[in-house]
């Protein structure tokens, strides 16, 4: 028999885990927790995901991650939704923008406003977001929603806080927004949300 082959296994951590899991006969579990030398696993659930696979984060986590992912970007100060959507339009090629509350009522708008207004579109965005979150309750909060129509699109950004109903900021633009730009806009909105009336 080859006595040396046993040396190629690192079972220290396995045994440490077993020290917790294997109770002594007659006792259901160990009384004192045991310190384990956790291997240097990459924790996907600990905020190390690249942008393309992020999901299921709280508002604070999203804001934190977005700030970290956009280093060097100047944080804007908005004291009203009007100034916020004005900045959004200036940062994108949006031709119109609007803000609706959780009931779908438009509370601010700017740019090329269609004659029928954005009431219906805003309500539909709110309804769609609620529907999507019901379909996939474990997918986390929806931050952004794209609705393509004709040769344009509405990009809806969801601004939610823990203790208040969400707002949806809609940008009507001819071009799709890159994911980085979406993150920047979301970051600006979330950072300014407590200050806006």
């Amino acid at each position, binding site marked *: 028999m080859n006595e040396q*082959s046993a040396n190629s296994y690192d079972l220290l951590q396995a045994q440490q885990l077993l020290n917790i899991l294997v109770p002594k006969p007659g006792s259901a579990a160990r009384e004192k927790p045991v310190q384990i030398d956790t291997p240097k696993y990459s924790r996907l659930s600990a905020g190390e995901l690249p942008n393309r696979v992020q999901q299921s984060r709280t508002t604070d986590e999203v804001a934190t991650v977005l700030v970290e992912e956009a280093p060097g970007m100047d944080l804007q100060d908005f004291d009203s939704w009007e100034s916020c959507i004005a900045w959004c339009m200036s940062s994108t090629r949006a031709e119109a923008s609007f803000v609706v509350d959780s009931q779908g009522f438009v509370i601010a708008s700017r740019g090329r406003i269609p004659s029928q207004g954005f009431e219906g579109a805003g309500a539909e965005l709110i309804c769609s977001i609620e529907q999507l979150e019901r379909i996939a309750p474990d997918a986390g909060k929806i931050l952004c929603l794209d609705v393509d129509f004709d040769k344009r699109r509405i990009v809806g950004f969801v601004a939610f806080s823990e203790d208040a109903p969400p707002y949806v900021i809609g940008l009507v633009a001819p071009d799709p927004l890159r994911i980085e730009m979406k993150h920047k806009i979301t970051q600006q909105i979330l950072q300014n949300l407590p200050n806006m009336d």
Partner: protein
Amino acid sequence: MANVISIVSSKGGTGKTTVALNLAVALAEKGDNTLLIDVDPLGAIGLSLARSDAEWTGLAEYITQKMPIEDVIIKTKLPQLSILPRGRLDPLDITLYEEILHSSQTVPEIIAAVDGMYQYVIIDSPSGLGMITRSALSVSNFVLLPLQAEALSLRSIQQTLRVITHVKENDNPKLQLLGILATMVQLHQDSSFNILKTVWSSLSGVLETYIPRADVFALASDKGLPVAFLGGKYPPEALRFELLATEIKKIIQELGGMTGESDERTERELI
């Protein structure tokens, strides 16, 4: 209250389904009402016993058609053994099936529905440590960890132990490790022997019973039978599972589980 035992391993091909099926048979043959649940999207139990994976209704129909659970549980010719198969799941829907089992209350509802009917519920989980395995662990009282007697299986064992520890600490404090079961052991081969020797010397919680690699398992699979049901001379491998059932029942009793057995004996007269 049923003793719910998940058979779990991060590595595929360690013999989870073979252990689950033959352990369930051994427990049932000892007179314990036993339910074998196949949550593996592959439907490995069905593949082991039926002619095709679309022969039996089961979990898939319970989920999609809301069939009552008692209508999808199969009574076997072994009176104490019932099987809840995976059902006629379209392989294209496996991702959805995994999400439903993980995010819904399906698995806890099933366990609650059968709780008073069986002494043992054996859950055959899929390979890996994904959503379904986590769901199975979250509703189990006990977990059995088959360890194939080869290097890759031994090196990956800490992954499984880490997930079990995490589930125990965060989701299901009542979860307890029954033990590590060495499978596919070939003592006449140096590599297999050395693995087993390493396991015995380095790890605690290794069961005394081990399952050897033997042609009889391939024969049983070919015939769609548990090894104990093969014709001819009773295979020693079936005896292994009887020993495993006895050892597991003893451990469950030591851990405070309900086996329905007591060490109390009434006095008898010899003459």
